[in-house]
């Protein structure tokens, strides 16, 4: 290859170097760690090499299976509802009507709150004894519920909290996409006779398809990274009803001090996220789609 042919690679070298240092290296480290049985407070050199024993244990570990299942269910409900609500809200508030900008600001507030605070806020709202939710349910004659102490209610609570926090994210991305749509195309569809829902379904949504896919992808990755809110809200309980995979890893690593095993599970997590993201990218290919017209 001539110098000229190589030069593009030369120019992406810094980006590649940062990628390797920032992304590939930690993943390899996690994998490396998963081959050892290391405990915090001891020298890593003294940690016994255990080969793929952690992976073998993981494959048959019911707790890991349960956690993956919880995560998938959590992801399904949150992402489905968030996408639906986020898109619906964006469509409602897209028009520059009076007060829309105020609404928009209010809607994105949850996004600006640190996850730890979100966890605390909702923990107190859902609190069985002093929480507002039980208080107001009591006002309308509904028995107080132990929201975070019952497997189904706690799962509902984390789904609800996640929807509360992340719908604005979809909302903000979708509204940006909608506002960037050329108005003439939207007018063309009105002239072509599209009614309200045809207008949305056949014109607006297909045109922001790549944005929707990217939002979906980001949320999916986030679901597998979600940790702080559940950690504070339920700590994964009751039982493992709300122990998402990332929280499971955290608990294994720092509560029960099984760092090597936790690393093995995090390798599994990376594989799952990779497979799902890859699936979305292949199916949708949002990055290929250029803006046209």
């Amino acid at each position, binding site marked *: 290859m001539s110098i000229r042919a190589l030069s593009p690679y030369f120019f992406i070298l810094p980006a590649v170097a940062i990628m390797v240092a920032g992304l590939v290296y930690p993943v390899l480290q996690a994998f490396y760690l998963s081959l050892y049985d290391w405990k915090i407070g001891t*020298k890593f050199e003294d940690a016994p090499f255990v080969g793929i024993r952690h992976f073998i244990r993981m494959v048959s570990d019911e707790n890991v299976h349960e956690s993956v299942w919880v995560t998938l269910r959590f992801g399904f409900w949150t992402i489905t509802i968030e996408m639906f609500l986020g898109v619906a809200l964006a469509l409602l508030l897209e028009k520059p009507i009076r007060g829309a900008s105020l609404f928009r600001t209010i809607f994105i507030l949850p996004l600006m709150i640190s996850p730890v605070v979100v966890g605390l806020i909702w923990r107190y709202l859902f*609190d069985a004894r002093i929480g507002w939710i039980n208080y107001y349910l009591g006002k309308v004659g509904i028995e107080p519920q*132990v*929201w975070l*102490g*019952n497997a189904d209610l706690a799962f509902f609570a984390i789904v609800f909290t996640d929807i509360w926090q992340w719908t604005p994210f979809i909302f903000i991305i979708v509204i940006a996409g909608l506002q960037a749509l050329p108005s003439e195309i939207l007018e063309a569809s009105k002239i072509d006779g599209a009614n309200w829902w045809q207008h949305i379904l056949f014109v607006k949504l297909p045109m922001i398809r790549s944005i929707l896919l990217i939002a979906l992808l980001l949320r999916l990755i986030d679901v597998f990274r979600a940790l702080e809110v559940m950690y504070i809200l*339920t700590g994964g*309980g009751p*039982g493992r009803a709300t122990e998402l995979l990332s929280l499971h890893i955290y608990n294994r690593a720092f509560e029960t001090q099984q760092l090597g095993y936790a690393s093995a599970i995090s390798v599994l997590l990376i594989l799952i996220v990779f497979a799902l993201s890859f699936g979305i990218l292949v199916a949708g290919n949002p990055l290929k789609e250029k803006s046209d017209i």
Partner: protein
Amino acid sequence: MDLFELKTRAAAAIAGTALAFATSAWANPYEKYAGTTVVISWPALAHFNAAEGLLEEFTEETGIEVEVDALQYLRLRDRQLLEMSKEEGDYDIASWVVMWKGEYVSKGLLTPLSQFFTNGSLVDPQFDIDDVADAYLQNGGVVGGKKGYMPGKSGALYGLPFGAETSILAYRKDILEEQGLEVPTTYDELREVMTKLHEAGIPAMTSRGQTGHQVTAGWLLHLAPMGGKIFDDEWNPVINSPEAVKAAEFMRHIVKTGPKGIETFGFGEASAAFLQGDAALYLDTLKIAAMSRNPNLSKVDGKVGFALHPTDVRCGSETGGFAMGIPANSQNKEAAFLLIQYLTSKAGDQRMVELGGDPVRISTLQNNADSFEDYPVVAEQLPCADPDWRPLIPEWNELNIDVLGQALTKVITTDDPIQPIMDEANEKAREIMEREGYYSWAKYRQ
């Protein structure tokens, strides 16, 4: 300020001016270390917050600077492990929850206190270690005895108790009186009182119940009085024994008759329920006494009575809380020892009481019995404090959180039969012990 102290200070002042001429012999035991800074890692809990006042007095008196790194107590262990496993650590004093002591010592992270107690220039002859409540000292400070964490001849002292505790029963005098109920002394009576309160529409007893170590802690409080244990003497788990099942059943009873949401209560929520008047009974750490007197936390000051931890087949209360010692990689070990000695001395213990903390000395409990209703109860309770109410082995974390924490959540959140749940947990516990090699001696002998 007593006369002795006054004299010492005067002497120190004179010695200070004479220092330019004197070359040997230090004027006071602290002077050699004046100006050094001792860094303490301890939890951000009421007792320790109160102790900061005492630290200031220490600095003023000795010239040794003190820096505190106070963390939420569940975060403490990671931080300390990380710091103590470095070549040169930043911490000179670490304050640990008693269950971590085995892990710290087995990883070689602590300095044996014998190194200091053999140094005549450091040890205050009036320190009187025998006055420190034995249950506290053994449970928090001694490592390597029987089973590695209990008292015994193979044990050695690594720390002194500070913020240590046992369990007592706190009750609402007004509510029991109103309902015409006697203060329970046995578990049978307690059970009945709880049922009656519940029937009267009053949430009976609060407890920790959150999945993980919280629910396990709640259960363990009842396991010891009911005669149960986690392991037999050969490290075989016995958490499916009739006693253990009975304790689990009692937890279910607590949840059914207690305030709403015990399934989600950690220590803070459980205490708050009692302190805010949403529960009539509290059976956990003695710290509830100090908290009930704190107007910022409590709405029930003056209405709370204290009694011994009820007995079932035997008397047995928890031993827990904190002890403090010196990391092996500390750079200021002698100064650190002086501070520990200062905090746990008779005068220091008394000052802690005055600042709103909890004492560790029998003499302090006796001397203040008139001021605090709970002190005579604690003094009476201490002989019953059971150092083996939970095993303090490195594997305990996993058993505590992953096995018992899960099983007991199932007990209190469902109506499933308890025995199968505990059987399953026992099997899991056995697998862990097997994995960690506890049965190799038994196998070897076969």
